[in-house]
């Protein structure tokens, strides 16, 4: 199980690196999907099977599809690739990288501090998640669903054809 975890984690990190260094947006997106799936595997090895499935269904399967959908409409060509190449010059990313380096160090340090939890032994069932969502977190869920409903209504309003009289 640990082997699987580390492999998936490595794939996730590598794929994410590839995402930010690709100039071709479609390729970047492909790597992003790979990264998401790898993260799903990580979830799975940690026992969060439901989260793993949702990761794939929602992020990899729906949101990324919408990304791709938009990209198809944008008619990206050689010029955007050139632009991306320019943006990948070191003097553009070196500064932010140096600034976030302390954050990384902090993160690693904090993870090192945390107790070594081998979560794989405690599988979290869908039932547990449901109970948690509609138990302690019911308010958050209802608020989120209200927000989503508002979004739905707004989208419907925006997409409505004006000339329907």
């Amino acid at each position, binding site marked *: 199980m640990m082997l699987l975890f580390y492999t998936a984690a490595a794939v996730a990190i590598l794929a994410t690196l590839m995402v930010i260094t690709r100039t071709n947006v479609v390729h970047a997106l*492909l790597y992003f999907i790979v990264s998401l799936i790898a993260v799903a595997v990580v979830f799975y090895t940690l026992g969060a099977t439901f989260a793993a499935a949702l990761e794939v269904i929602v992020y990899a399967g729906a949101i990324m599809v919408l990304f*791709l959908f938009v990209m198809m409409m944008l008619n990206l060509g050689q010029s955007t690739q050139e632009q991306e190449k320019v943006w990948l010059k070191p003097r553009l990313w070196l500064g932010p990288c140096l600034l976030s380096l302390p954050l990384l160090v902090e993160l690693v340090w904090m993870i090192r501090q945390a107790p070594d939890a081998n979560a794989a032994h405690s599988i979290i069932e869908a039932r547990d998640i449901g109970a948690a969502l509609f138990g302690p977190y019911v308010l958050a869920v209802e608020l989120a669903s209200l927000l989503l409903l508002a979004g739905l209504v707004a989208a419907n309003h925006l997409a409505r054809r004006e000339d329907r009289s």
Partner: protein
Amino acid sequence: MFDIEVGSALVMGLILGGVILISAWLIWLERRLLGVWQDRLGPNRVGPLGLGQVIADMFKIFTKEDWVPPFADKLVFMVAPPIIMICILLSFAVIPIAPNVGIIDLNIGLLWILAMASLAAYSVMLGGLASNNKYALLGSLRAAAQMVSYEVFMGISLLGVVMLSGTFNLREIVESQRDGWYILPQFFAFIVFAIASVAESHRLPFDLPEAEQEIVAGFHTEYSGMKFGMFFVGEYIGVLLASALMTVLFFGGWLPPFGIGPEDSIVAGIFWMLLKTMVFVCFFVLMRAAIPRPRYDQLMSYGWLVLLPLSLINLLITGAVILFQGA
């Protein structure tokens, strides 16, 4: 004696091999059935009953020039076709064939299938996008919108079954139908699921991504040879998967109808499972033979304005009933 149990290498090989063989053979079945329903004969020249037609077609498709258009995004173009094959074959891993026959008993089996189905959408989208062809692009745009939309109600419609059985595990769902198939309590869910699965596998009447009268061949316009073959066979595996799912979720899987014959025999289980699945496969073919393709906006508004409310209402009622019974 061979080791017949879930997850054994033999079973795994038999199931995956069988799925691919049956899917390939479905091409022949579909052509024959279309012939029957259109008062024609269908392929009957190669081998007995024309069964060799599939082999001949495979030979043809393997020996065709495997061409990559010079204007295509080569990497993505090559990656796209296997995705659909892999995703759908992986879905079969969680399908219970008979008692003790299956590849894996996953506790999130149904979610697994939904996840794989949503990943399969990439195959079509990337294939169309990488082809760098306007018809292919149009096809994949349609595919993306169609699959993302219909995935929603497909998932919602299945929740009724999940609520009734209380599990995502498909084997447990089958077991929970011993008292009665879910087709009765979940009739509307079945309707929604059946329609959505046709749309998911973009088969006629919902084959808008490859509507040849409008956009040549849609997303696979530029594909040829084995790469086209993967799309082609992938579609038939999809049909098989959808049929198997309907069987498992609504028609009691391997369980015999009306208690005919032994309940937990592996052979009888495989027989009933296959028989039920084949009926649905034939239904798929019948739909292709009979129903014309809707317009694109009709497809979308039908999904969002009819199927979505229907599946939500179904979910609501199911939940209410369970709540009422539980109380």
